[in-house]
Every structure is written in C-alpha cells, then in structure tokens.
C-alpha cells in the first residue's frame, strides 16, 4: 500500500479517529497536571545537556557499564546490526532449549524485528504487555510507542480475544478482557526459560539498568524465567543515578501524564534464581549499534539519540492525530519515528514520512529531552529530497517562479486575470475552487487586483507627528492576497506616530521552498530577499503580519546564509529585531480601547506561539475584557501548512474541522488570529460550511474597531 492509500484508509477509520482524538484531549490535561509545580523548561534543559554526548563519551560510559555489569558474571554483547542481535539472542534461547520466551515491551526489539526472527527459528516469543499481546495475537504492529494498541476499540479487542481463547467475552467488558490476559500470560512466565526486556536507562557507574512499566510485566519477565536478556541501544546509557532519575522524573509525565509509572525496576548483575542449578540467574546485556554509534558524531542526528521514547511528539502532533502510527510511522512512529526511520531503516520510507510533518513545531516544544524535532525533520527533508528528487512541477515553482520576484509577480498578475470568471460577489474570494474535488474543502481567497506594494504609496499618512520608524516585511500572502491587512497595519501604526517603510521589491521569505525540501531554492530565495532588506539599526523594529515569514527571518535566514558573511551579518541583525505587529504594539505600551461589543476568540498561529514565541491571548484579554472568549486548543495547528493543505488535503481538512468545532463552542462572532495563512484556512473552512463567524487578522480588527 502506498502512502496516499494508507492516508485515505486512516482518514476513513472512525475508530482510529475517535480514539486518537479522545486521547489527545485527555493527554493534554493529565500532562499539564503532572508537570504542575515543576519547572518543565529547566528539567528539559538539565536532561538535554546531560545527554549531549559524542561517540567517544558514549563509548566511555559503555566500558564503565560493562565493567560494573559483568562483575557478577553477566555477559555484555555488542551487536553491530539487527541480524547480529537477533542471532545472538536466538543462540541463547536455543542453548537453553526453551520453547516459549516471555517478552516485555521493547521498541528496540521492534526495530530489529526480533519476534519474526525468533519465530522463523521455531521459537515462541510471547509479548506480555497487554497492548503488545493484543497486537501479537492479531498479527499487527504497534501504532504508538507507549500505547501500542491505541488504534483498537474494545469491541475489536473482544473479538480478537474470543477468537484466540474461544471464551465468551462481551463486547464492552474490558475487565474480563484484562482478566483473560492475566490468566493466559501468567502461564507463559512460568513456561518460559528465557525472559527478554528492554531498558529505559543503563546506569554506567553502577552497571545497572532501569525498566519502567505500569503492568508489572517487566518485573515478572526479569524475575520468573532463569535467563534474562536485556536488549538496548547505546543511547540508553546515562552516567549515574542522578541522571537516570532525571529520565524517570520526565518520562511517565511526558508519556501518559502519570506522575510516575507503577513500577520502576532497577537491576544489576545476576540475581538469585532458584530454577538454575547454581541458584543464580543467567543475564545478558545486548547493546545494539545498528548505526547508532556513528550517529553520536553526526552534526544533526546526534540530537535524536537523546530521545527517551515517551511518544509525546506523537501525542501532540495534529497530523499523527488524524492518521495514527501505522500511516505516520514505519516501526518508530510520529515525529521521532520519521527521524529514526531515516537512521535505522529505509531512507525512501523516511523521505515520505518526513513530508507528513506540517511544520507546527508542537513536537519540539513538548519534547522532554529538548530535541528540536521539527528542525531535524526540516533538515532531513532537504537531505532526502535532494536524494530522491522533487516532483518537476514543484521544482519549477520553487526554483523558477518564487525565487525570481519579477517572474513571480507576473505569474500572480496572470493569475489575477485568469481568476476573473470565478471571482465571487464579495470580490475577495473565489466562487469555485480551481483545485480537484478531493482537495476542495475551503473557499479560497482571490488574488488581489492590486498588490500591497502598489497600494502602499496611496495610504494617507500624517507625516508630521511621526517619531518612530519601523520596517514592515509584508510577505507573499499580504502582497498578493491580503493587501488590506498591510494597509490596516500602516494606518494603525501611523495613528500612533510610527512611520512604516517597506521593501522596494517583494521577495518570498524562502520558507515554502524549505518546507518542500528544496534547500537550494530556499537559499537562493533568501539571498535575493536580503538584497531588499534594510539595515535594521535604522529602525525601531522589523515587523511582520505573517509569523511564518517572521520565523523564517528569525531562524532560517541565519541558518542558510552561513556561507555569505555580509548576508549572514544582515540576517543576524534582522533576526534580533523581527517581531509581529501585535508584539510591537505591546512593546509600545499603547492603551487601546475597542469600540464594539462583539464576542471575540483567538487562534494562536503555530509560528507565532512557537516560532516567534508568544501568543496574543493575554494581550487580547486585556484589551477586550469579558468580550474575549478563550479558544480550546488555541495553540494547536489549524491545518494550513502552506502547500501541505493541498498535498495532504484530507489531513489538513481533518485538523481544520477540529479547529472549527472548538471555534463554534466559543460562541464568538469573530475569530482573531495573526497569520494570513491561518486566515486563509479558517475563513475558507467556515465559509465552505456556511457558518456566520468572521475571521480577521488582528491588524484589520484593530484598524476597524479602535
């Protein structure tokens, strides 16, 4: 099945939709409660800096671990790859003549497809984690790292169990299902001679491992059978218990919103086991390389080795919430999954998965190990796109059209003529979508007859009382679709004595090309853009109405201009001074009064909240008082993501529908936001559904109502 088919199937799966939606909403609440009173950012910074290690440092920790772990006779094996690890583990199992193998959940064993290997060798591994066992019986794979069977309904599980056990189980009797699992799995612990677990941490200075479970299956697997094999990656190594406990403090809170998991088990060496002739357990630690060791020295991917496998990057990912881990994942799932797939599995598959990222940055914000997942995804997307290529049409658009401002302008001009037959009565939207039916879920805006650059000189200004000066970068959306938003900004700022300058030529910020994976086109566009940027020291601020442009200027300009000293210098200066219109108003400290009584709510654009780093919520609450109604999940993506909303229209629409549901809940008359892209998406969706709720950019709102 190709990715498109998988996406379609996932989107049509009502159980998946319901389960993931309910989970996402409950998770956010319990996670917030679990971190209540703790300084999350500080905890993350601590863990992240501790886990910054290169290959030599990891090797040192490994040697120390080995020395301590083997003092009681435990064996430590270094497996170079998946087959090597599988073969070693199989040999141990065969040596002990075991038929059954009790297994406690281990993503590393999924990575090397251990069960398949063991089964081919005639062995019977039994997954003892309830979710994993359900999937093992059903012949499926986990769709989430922490909640493997999250895609299954209770009715489906009942059916799986009925078929497997022949017992009578009512469709909704979860208690009975759990009791059945308890009964069946209890036997296997005692039948198995070998138990296999993973490890959440490996403490180097003690030679001990820590295993986290809620069910207690890790304890049983490591206690009842006389042989214990621990399979783990080198990234699980930590220096000491202090570092290990930092992981334990964050992991359950980030994974499921629990304060701590029910069982945290610390094991060192070979403990007592009456089933062995000498009364001592036989213990093996299998350290898996599979490319890891090299990645510890990789400039970007070394960051991904900080992952503690909590799954929060999936839990808060709007795209994952629509399609689940069988579509957005290979073996590892979600944001980290697309990165780990590039590292340990197939690059081509990774290339496809990386494209599923909408770029909302929620994963980076929520990661307890401080991994900037979205940046890594963006870099890898460029890398794999270079290797596997971009569709010809896209390449043409990013390289020949957008990177060249004159051609871009002409193209938009032509577009503005071609659209005439389908312009709707309000003049600013299209009555018919030029897109195919399966991508037509929004009413699209029309291309403005006049660009912002053309309108700008005609705006009335009171030049006399200007005592401040800012530089406004309009970006393509304002320039070609929403010049009235730019006009509103100029009018509002002029009222407060701020002069507004704009670029002499409008050039794209480069983000669309970068997001599509065309790094070269992105770089060329940024370079061209900088030709028309001023020296920021002449201005009070550099201002945007589109936070995506703002974020590109803040982050991508310096990142992509490293080879050009002059432009890098300019980029750094711009990066320091770039803020949004609302942030600037707040900085000015002007006391605004709103002259209307409408109910207003606010959607926080991703690149405003997480890109530029602040939401307008508190500002709007202050100026609107009781007329401001908070929006549930205000900072969750609206599903736009630029060309993402066309390429993955089904996912985009699904995310938008949830946003609209929340908007309706507020009962507001107007939805404010501060990104033209979000306006395009949300307004388009509301119009398509014939809902009488207005969507306005903050600039237009303030110009109309102060």
């Amino acid at each position: 099945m190709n990715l498109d088919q998988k996406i379609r199937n996932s989107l049509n799966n009502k159980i998946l939709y319901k389960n993931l939606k309910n989970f996402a909403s409950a998770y956010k609440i319990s996670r917030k409660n679990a971190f209540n009173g703790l300084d999350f950012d500080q905890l993350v910074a601590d863990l992240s800096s501790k886990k910054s290690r290169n290959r030599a440092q990891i090797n040192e920790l490994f040697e120390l671990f080995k020395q301590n772990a083997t003092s009681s006779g435990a064996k430590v094996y270094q497996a170079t790859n998946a087959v090597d690890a599988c073969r070693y583990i199989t040999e141990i199992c065969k040596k002990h003549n075991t038929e059954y193998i009790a297994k406690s959940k281990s993503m590393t064993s999924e990575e090397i497809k251990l069960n398949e290997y063991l089964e081919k060798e005639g062995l019977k591994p039994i997954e003892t984690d309830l979710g994993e066992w359900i999937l093992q019986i059903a012949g499926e794979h986990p769709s989430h790292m922490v909640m493997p069977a999250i895609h299954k309904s209770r009715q489906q599980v009942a059916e799986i169990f009925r078929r497997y056990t022949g017992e009578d189980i009512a469709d909704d009797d979860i208690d009975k299902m759990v009791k059945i699992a308890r009964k069946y799995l209890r036997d296997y612990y005692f039948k198995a001679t070998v138990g296999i677990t993973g490890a959440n941490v490996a403490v180097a200075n003690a030679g001990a491992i820590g295993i986290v479970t809620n069910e207690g299956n890790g304890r049983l697997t490591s206690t009842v059978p006389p042989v214990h094999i621990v399979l783990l990656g080198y990234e699980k190594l930590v220096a000491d218990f202090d570092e290990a406990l930092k992981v334990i403090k964050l992991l359950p809170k980030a994974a499921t919103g629990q304060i701590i998991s029910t069982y945290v088990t610390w094991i060192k060496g070979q403990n007592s086991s009456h089933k062995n002739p000498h009364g001592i357990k036989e213990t093996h630690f299998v350290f898996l390389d599979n490319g890891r060791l090299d990645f510890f020295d990789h400039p970007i991917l070394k960051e991904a080795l900080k992952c503690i496998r909590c799954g929060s990057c999936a839990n808060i990912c709007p795209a994952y919430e629509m399609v689940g881990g069988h579509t957005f994942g290979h073996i590892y799932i979600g944001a980290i999954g697309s990165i780990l797939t590039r590292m340990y599995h197939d690059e081509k598959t990774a290339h496809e998965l990386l494209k599923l990222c909408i770029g909302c940055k929620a994963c980076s914000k929520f990661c307890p190990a401080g991994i900037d997942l979205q940046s890594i995804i963006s870099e890898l997307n460029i890398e794999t796109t270079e290797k596997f290529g971009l569709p010809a049409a896209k390449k043409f658009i990013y390289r020949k059209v957008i990177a060249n401002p004159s051609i871009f302008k002409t193209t938009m001009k032509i577009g503005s003529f071609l659209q005439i037959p389908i312009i709707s009565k309000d003049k600013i939207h299209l009555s018919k979508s030029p897109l195919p039916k399966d991508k037509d879920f929004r009413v699209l805006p029309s291309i403005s007859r006049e660009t912002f650059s053309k309108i700008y000189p005609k705006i009335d200004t009171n030049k006399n009382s200007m005592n401040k000066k800012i530089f406004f970068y309009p970006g393509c959306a304002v320039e070609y679709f929403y010049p009235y938003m730019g006009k509103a900004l100029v009018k509002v700022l002029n009222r407060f004595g701020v002069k507004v300058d704009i670029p002499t030529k409008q050039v794209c910020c480069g983000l669309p090309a970068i997001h599509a994976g065309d790094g070269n086109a992105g770089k060329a566009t940024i370079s061209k853009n900088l030709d028309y940027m001023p020296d920021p020291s002449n201005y009070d601020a550099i201002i945007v109405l589109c936070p995506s442009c703002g974020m590109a200027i803040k982050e991508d300009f310096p990142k992509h201009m490293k080879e050009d000293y002059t432009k890098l210098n300019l980029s750094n200066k711009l990066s320091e001074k770039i803020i949004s219109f609302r942030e600037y108003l707040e900085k000015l400290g002007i006391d605004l009064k709103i002259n209307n009584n409408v109910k207003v709510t606010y959607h926080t654009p991703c690149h405003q909240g997480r890109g530029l780093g602040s939401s307008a919520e508190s500002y709007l609450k202050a100026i609107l008082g009781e007329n401001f109604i908070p929006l549930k999940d205000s900072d969750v993506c609206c599903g736009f993501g630029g060309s993402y909303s066309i390429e993955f229209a089904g996912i985009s629409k699904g995310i938008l529908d949830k946003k609209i549901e929340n908007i309706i809940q507020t009962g507001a008359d107007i939805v404010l936001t501060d990104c033209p892209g979000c306006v395009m998406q949300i307004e388009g969706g509301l119009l398509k559904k014939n809902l009488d709720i207005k969507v306005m950019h903050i600039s237009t709102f303030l110009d109309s109502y102060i």
Partner: protein
Amino acid sequence: MNKTPLERFLKYSSMVSNEHIFLKESQINSYLKETRFNYINIPSLNLFRDCVIDENGIESAIVEAEAGISETGTAVVMSEDEKLRLATCLCEELTVILYTDKIFNNLEDIAPILEANMRKESNYIAFITGASRTADIERVLTIGVHGPVRMKVILTERGE
C-alpha cells in the same frame, strides 16, 4: 501551603488508589496476627514468613520499604531476595510498611540509596507506586493486569 513530606506522600499515594493505615511500631505484631499474610518480610522487626509461590500466585504479602518518595507516592523496596520479588509480583494484595522517617522529598534524593546498594555485584530494587495497572484497551484504566490488584501502605513511626 507547603505540605510535609508525609502529607505529600499521602496525596500522591492516594492518587493511585492506595489504602493507608497508621500503626505504631508496637502494633505491627498484632496486625500481622489479625491479617494472615502468606508472605512476610520485615527486616527491621525481624519478622519473616515464607511460603510456596507458583503460577497460581498467593493471596497476600507484606514487605518493608527501604524508603518512600513523597513527590510520587512511591515505596522503594529492596528486592534482591528472589522470594520477595515473586511474592510482591504475584500476590493479590500487596502491603508495604513504610517508616515515616524514611520518606524523602524528591526522586533525586533516592540517588544515594540506589548508588550505595548497587555497589554490590548484583541487586534488584523496585519502585512501587500502586497496584498493577493498564490502560491499553481504549485507555480505560484497569487494575491488576499482571500483579497485585490492591496495595496498602502502613505508615509507622519508629519506637513505641
């Protein structure tokens, strides 16, 4: 208001539905007589009882905790003894005796205890916070999937 370590322990331990009993050290013996535990391991009072433990499990076990962690409501149980491990894994009801002077504030405070005990060639230490649980079917919380179905914590002050 700042809670004492004991109050905070009770808060988090209650969140996982643990039952709490307050006993003086001198009352423990009679408590053990009233409640016929299959397995007993309380080194501080030199109280032990062994039993056969197989796949059928046992009804009840009582063990002494080495420490408590108030920020998580956790009991730290030294589990080097295989029988103790089996008993705490395979009993229906687990009772833990925790001396209140051994309750630490935060997870990090346990690092020295782990460090010291893991200097041995081998060891097995368990953090236990409530009964065995799962939410793997539609995220519905269900208790007792593999191990104990109930957990009790006896909080004891040292001396009379």
